[in-house]
C-alpha cells in the first residue's frame, strides 16, 4: 500500500519535471524565433518590421501551417507522412479540374473563370475529399497492412503525383475561378488575409482537438505505447486511420489555399513540402518517436525557416547560407530533445 503511494508521488514529480523540460524544449525554439525577429528588426527596422512584410510572412506561413498541423498528429502517433506535398498537388489538380468542368469552360487552360461561390464550394469539398481519400489509404495501409509509414507514404507520394500528372498530362490547370483567387487567395477580412485566417482557424481547431478531447488523448496514447493503448481499450487501428485521414484532409485544404494563392495548380512545386513540415514539427518539440508534441510548437517551428529566408533576403546574405543555417537549427533542435531525454532518464 505504502509502496503504491510512493510510486504515485514519484510519478507526479516525474511528470512535473517532464513538463518543465518540455517547456524548455519548446521554450528555447520560441526564444530562437524571438531572437531572429529581434535581430532582423534591429538591422532593417523599416523593411523587416513593415506592416507589409509582417503580412507577407504570415501569408507565406499559412499553407505550411495547415500542412504541418496534420503532420503533427501523424508524428505524435510515431508515424510520418511523406506524401503531403504530392497529395496537395493531386487535390489541387482534381479540384481545379472539377471547378473548370462545372463552370463550363473545360477547354480553357489559361486565365480565370466566372464560376460562382457554389462551384468554388464544390471545388473545396472535392479537394478535401481527395486529400482525405489519400490519407485514409495511408492510414489503412499503416494500421491494417502493417507496412511502415515511411514506406507507405513514400509510395503514395509517387502515386499521388503520378495520378496528378496523368489527369493533367503534366500541364498545370491555369484557369481558377476569379472569385476564389481575389477573395480567398489575395482577399482580406477585417484587414487580415483570408489565407492567414484559414490557417489560424485550422491551428485553433486542431489544437483544441489534440489537447482537450478524448480523441487527442488517444492520439498521444497510440504514439507513446500502441500495445498499452490497445489493452486499455483504444481502437488503435481506427485511430491511426483517422489521424492519417485528418492529415490528408489538411493537405486537401492546403491545396485549396495554394490554388487560390497562385491562381494556377503548381504540379512542379511542393516537392519539399514533406521535409519542410516534418522539420517544422520536429523544431516545435514533437518527438519523432511519438507520444509527445504540441500544435503550438509546430506553429513556432513553421515560422523559423520562413523568417530566416525573409531576413536573409532582406539583408542580402548570399542564398546558400540560408540552407546552412536552417540545417544547423534543425540539428540543434533535435539535440536539445536528446538532452531532455537523457535528463529524464537520470531523474
Amino acid at each position, binding site marked *: 500500500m505504502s509502496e503504491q503511494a510512493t510510486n504515485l508521488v514519484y510519478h507526479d514529480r516525474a511528470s512535473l519535471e517532464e513538463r518543465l523540460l518540455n517547456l524548455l524544449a519548446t521554450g528555447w525554439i520560441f526564444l530562437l524565433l524571438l531572437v531572429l525577429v529581434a535581430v532582423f528588426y534591429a538591422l532593417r527596422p523599416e523593411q523587416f518590421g513593415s506592416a507589409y512584410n509582417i503580412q507577407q510572412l504570415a501569408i507565406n506561413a499559412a499553407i505550411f501551417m495547415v500542412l504541418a498541423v496534420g503532420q503533427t498528429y501523424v508524428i505524435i502517433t510515431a508515424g510520418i507522412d511523406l506524401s503531403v506535398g504530392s497529395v496537395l498537388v493531386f487535390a489541387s489538380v482534381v479540384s481545379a479540374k472539377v471547378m473548370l468542368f462545372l463552370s463550363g469552360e473545360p477547354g480553357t487552360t489559361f486565365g480565370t473563370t466566372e464560376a460562382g461561390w457554389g462551384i468554388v464550394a464544390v471545388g473545396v469539398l472535392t479537394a478535401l475529399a481527395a486529400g482525405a481519400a489519400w490519407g485514409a489509404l495511408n492510414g489503412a495501409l499503416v494500421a491494417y497492412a502493417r507496412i511502415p509509414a515511411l514506406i507507405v507514404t513514400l509510395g503514395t507520394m509517387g502515386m499521388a503525383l503520378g495520378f496528378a500528372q496523368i489527369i493533367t498530362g503534366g500541364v498545370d490547370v491555369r484557369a481558377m475561378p476569379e472569385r476564389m483567387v481575389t477573395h480567398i487567395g489575395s482577399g482580406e477580412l477585417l484587414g487580415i488575409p483570408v489565407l492567414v485566417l484559414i490557417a489560424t482557424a485550422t491551428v485553433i481547431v486542431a489544437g483544441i482537438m489534440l489537447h482537450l478531447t478524448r480523441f487527442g488523448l488517444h492520439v498521444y496514447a497510440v504514439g507513446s505505447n500502441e500495445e498499452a493503448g490497445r489493452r486499455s481499450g483504444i481502437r488503435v487501428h481506427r485511430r491511426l486511420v483517422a489521424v492519417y485521414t485528418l492529415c490528408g484532409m489538411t493537405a486537401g485544404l492546403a491545396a485549396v489555399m495554394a490554388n487560390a494563392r*497562385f491562381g*494556377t495548380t503548381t504540379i512542379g512545386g511542393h516537392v519539399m513540402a514533406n521535409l519542410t513540415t516534418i522539420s517544422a514539427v520536429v523544431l516545435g518539440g514533437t518527438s519523432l518517436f511519438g507520444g509527445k508534441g504540441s500544435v503550438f510548437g509546430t506553429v513556432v517551428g513553421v515560422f523559423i525557416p520562413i523568417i530566416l529566408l525573409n531576413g536573409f533576403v532582406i539583408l542580402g546574405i548570399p542564398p546558400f547560407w540560408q540552407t546552412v543555417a536552417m540545417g544547423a537549427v534543425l540539428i540543434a533542435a533535435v539535440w536539445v530533445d536528446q538532452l531532455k531525454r537523457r535528463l529524464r532518464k537520470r531523474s
Partner: protein
Amino acid sequence: MKLRLILAAKLVGAFALAVPVQAQADNSVALVLGTKGSPFYQALQCGAMEKAEELGLALNVSAPELFAADVQVPVVNAVTAASPDVAVIVPTDMQALIPPMRELAERGTQVMTVDQTIADTSFLETQILTDNEAGGAMAAQALSELLGGEGKVLVITQPPGSLAQDARTAGFEAELENHPGLEYLGAQYQRNDPQRAAEIVTSTISAHPDLAGIFATNDQGAIGAITGLRQADAAGRVKMVAYDASSAQVSALKNGELQALIAQNPKQQGQVAMELAAQLIAGESLPEITLTEIVTITSDEPEKAERYEYIADCM
C-alpha cells in the same frame, strides 16, 4: 502600466519614424535567380555583379531553393519588403508569379524579367529574353547537317509548362518539316533528372537500334543522355545536339560525345540586366523586349565553346 504605455508610445514612435524613411542605399537593385547552385544562373549573377560594380549599383542577389513557384514567391515577397529601386527576376512560373511581381511593381519598384517571363507583362519595364524557338530551329538544322539529313531523331525535354523549354521543342519540331529525311520519334520528358534522361535514351535505343540523333533541350537532359549513350555504347555514333553550354556539356563536346551546342550567354544577360537597370534609375524608358544572343557551337570550335561556357568565374 505606465512603463508599458511609455514603451508602447516609443514603439509607435519608432514605427512612425521608420515608415516615411523607407530608404535603402540609392541605386539599389535586386536580382532573384531561378534557383540556387545552377551554373547558368551563377554565370548570370557574375555578369550582373561585374556590371553593377562598374555602374555603381548596389546589387543584392537571392535565389529560391528549387526552380518552383511556391518556393520562389516568399523570396519575391522579401525583396518587395526591401523595396529596391529596380528588381530583376527570373520568374519560375508564368502565372503564379504574376500577383507577387505586380505587388512589387505597385509598391514602387521597377520590375523586369530575365531568362524567363510571365503571362501578364503590363507592369514590367522590359523582358530580357532569348529567342528559344529560333534556338530550337538552330538545333534541328545542326542535327540535320550532322546526319546528312537522314535518320531517326529524339527530343529530350522538360514536361510541358515551361515556356522556354516548350518553345525550344516547338522550334525544333517546326524546323523538322523542312528536313523530310529525319524521322521524328517524339519528345520524352525528364524532370531535370539526368538519371531519367539516361533511362529514356537506353530504352529508346532498345526500341530503335538505328536511332541517329538526339536533341536535349537543357543541360540536365544532355548530361543524362550522354550517360545513356555511353551505357549503350553508342556515344559518338548517335549524334547529339544540346541546348546550353555547362562545363560538362563543353567537355563532352571536346571529347566527341556531343556534336553541337546551342548556347546562350548568361553573363551577357546579367550585364544587360544591370545596364537596363541603370537606365531605368536614370529615368529612361525601355523597349518591351530585349533579346540577347544565342549561338551554335560545333565540335570543331573548342575556343568558342570555352568562351561561351557557363562558368561562375566570380565565386
